[in-house]
């Protein structure tokens, strides 16, 4: 029952996709994640990461359809969204390496990367918790007379989280300028979407009168088109839209899986899932030379990002309570 209007081409208000730019973003995220996983294995990233590999088309396509002053919230698997929205890869790498030069000065790490200056209201470690925050920001933007739109990402697991469903209701009632992007990558950790979701993902939004579309989440341009329509609708104050982007997680749920190797999908299944690759789909849209040029640029960017991150200082333990209170209220230490 997906809304046919949303499956069609992007509304006239949205631009044509810039295929090279989309490819560039997909490539940046892919290589960022691969480098980050290496750093995890090298012990340079405390605690590991949830790699976004395979899902890059979603971040790339949706963010390309946003204006720079639009806002996003992200998830535990958030590197892709943060990079696609324009965060500096070096400061992002420094953040997940816990350095003072990181986006959050090393206080947030992989699951909390934020850059308020460019509209990134933060990744979030609690499944579904950012949906109302995004909706509040969207409402506030409209109150302030702006036509900004907020895009909020979450996984297939989040559509069973009460706060997300409550938020659908409020966003619909208020026609909040928010776009709900559900990345259905087939699994919540080890749990298959079908085993966790009664009914359908799009149906959950539609129940609240929110139009919803199922989108090919492996194709950056398909995502871009659907996002453009949803964003335009939000910008016209016509209310929220849900996009279910069907994608596949190539790598582990989290890097701990690389060692623990829980069995919940077969190698054949993974191969099948990887048979459609956003990098290849988008890459095929560019002349070979252009692609190679972008690839080289990205390598340089990441080389520099890793160098920047690893050369940056670790924060001083004496500053551990900095920023706890906005007004500088001093917390009592743990020993008198």
């Amino acid at each position: 029952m997906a809304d046919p209007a949303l499956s069609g081409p992007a509304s006239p208000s949205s631009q044509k996709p810039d295929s090279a730019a989309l490819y560039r973003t997909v490539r940046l995220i892919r290589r960022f994640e691969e480098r980050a996983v290496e750093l995890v294995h090298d012990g340079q990233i405390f605690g590991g990461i949830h790699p976004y590999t395979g899902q890059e088309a979603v971040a790339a396509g949706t963010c390309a359809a946003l204006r720079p002053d639009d806002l996003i919230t992200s998830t535990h698997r958030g590197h892709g969204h943060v990079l696609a929205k324009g965060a500096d890869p070096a400061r992002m790498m420094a953040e997940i390496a816990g350095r003072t030069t990181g986006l959050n000065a090393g206080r947030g790490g992989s699951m909390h990367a934020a850059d308020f200056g460019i509209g990134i209201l933060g990744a979030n470690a609690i499944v579904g918790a950012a949906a109302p925050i995004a909706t509040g920001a969207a409402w506030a933007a409209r109150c302030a007379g702006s036509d900004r739109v907020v895009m909020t990402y979450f996984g297939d697991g989040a559509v069973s989280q009460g706060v997300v469903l409550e938020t659908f209701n409020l966003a619909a009632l208020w026609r909040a300028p928010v776009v709900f992007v559900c990345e259905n990558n087939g699994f919540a950790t080890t749990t298959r979407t079908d085993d966790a979701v009664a009914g359908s993902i799009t149906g959950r939004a539609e129940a609240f009168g929110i139009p919803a579309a199922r989108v090919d989440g492996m194709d950056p341009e398909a995502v871009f088109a659907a996002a453009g329509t949803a964003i335009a609708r939000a910008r016209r104050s016509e209310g929220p839209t849900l996009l279910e982007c069907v994608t596949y997680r190539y790598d582990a749920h989290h890097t701990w899986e690389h060692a623990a190797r829980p069995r919940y999908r077969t190698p054949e299944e993974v191969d099948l899932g990887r048979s459609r690759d956003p990098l290849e789909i988008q890459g095929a849209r560019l002349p070979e030379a252009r692609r190679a040029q972008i690839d080289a640029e990205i390598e340089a960017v990441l080389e520099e990002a890793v160098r920047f991150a690893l050369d940056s200082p670790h924060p001083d333990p004496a500053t551990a309570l900095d920023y706890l209170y906005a007004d500088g209220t001093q917390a009592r230490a743990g020993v008198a």
Partner: protein
Amino acid sequence: MTVLSYLKALNRAIADEMQRDPAVCVFGEDVRAAVTNVTAGLVKRFGDARVLDMPISEQAFTGIATGAAMSGMRPLIEYQIPALLFLAFEQIVNQAHKFSLMTGGQVSVPVTYLIPSSGSRDGWAGQHSDHPYSLFAHIGVKTAVPATPADAYGLLATAIRDDDPVVVFAPAGAMGRREDVDLSQLAPVPLGVGRVHRVGTDVTVVAIGHLVQAALEVAEELAETVDVEVFDPRTLHPFDWQGLAESLERTGRLVVIDDSNRSCGIGGEILATAAEEMHLVAPPKRVTRPDGAVLPFAEGLDRALQPTREQLRTAIQAVAKNGGAR
């Protein structure tokens, strides 16, 4: 001088802050009809774009307030029942409270959570009678429990202006208080600054919220034999440890009366900090709800689990020099 009720003081603080700052808005269930009376008249005065009735979705609207606060608004949320904080607990303690530090100071979350009629509200039984302020002090969310109309006004105004999340508990037992005030003198009260309601030399009684009144009455009753100082911390986090230390410097004796559960309550925290760091010449005492208390419905049972004047009197006498005999 005008007689100001506690309830009206809360209402006035919100109205004054809404008047002063267009970013202040009110979220809650039935706030337009103002079923708690706290928001009476606000929708008429400020319009329904700033006074928003919510569906029964405490988690979502708490999170929405966080997002709005990050974007320049200053929402005040009214929760009709203390237990609704439990529904929104993740959004308050794990989201709103943590964003400033987690983002390296990129953002602040100026939201006020107001709970009118916290504690026992006479016959609302087990699920509606909690007084969970100590939970927020533990988490470290700024927490105020005003005892008087002027402090209700001043602390709520400060909470709304504060750049961090602040929970304001208005005890059911204080909602009916009235006092003579000069309205032009009503002013914000800083967080972390206690108030000595009665100066005394023998025993310091720290009383929380509506129990300040009880403490003052007991102090008068005992005035012949024990000279009681009544200290109201007004905010539980940050806490005016210095003010407490100064009082104990004089008295060296401490009793706390606190209408929350005994274990890990603010009463215990006050005793612990005093024992650790302050001048005490006798073992301190506290008067609280029992461990794990669930308030039963029947009136006599409900009353039996809340701290009483009688218990306070006995505790003061036990702590005072010579058992409070002169």
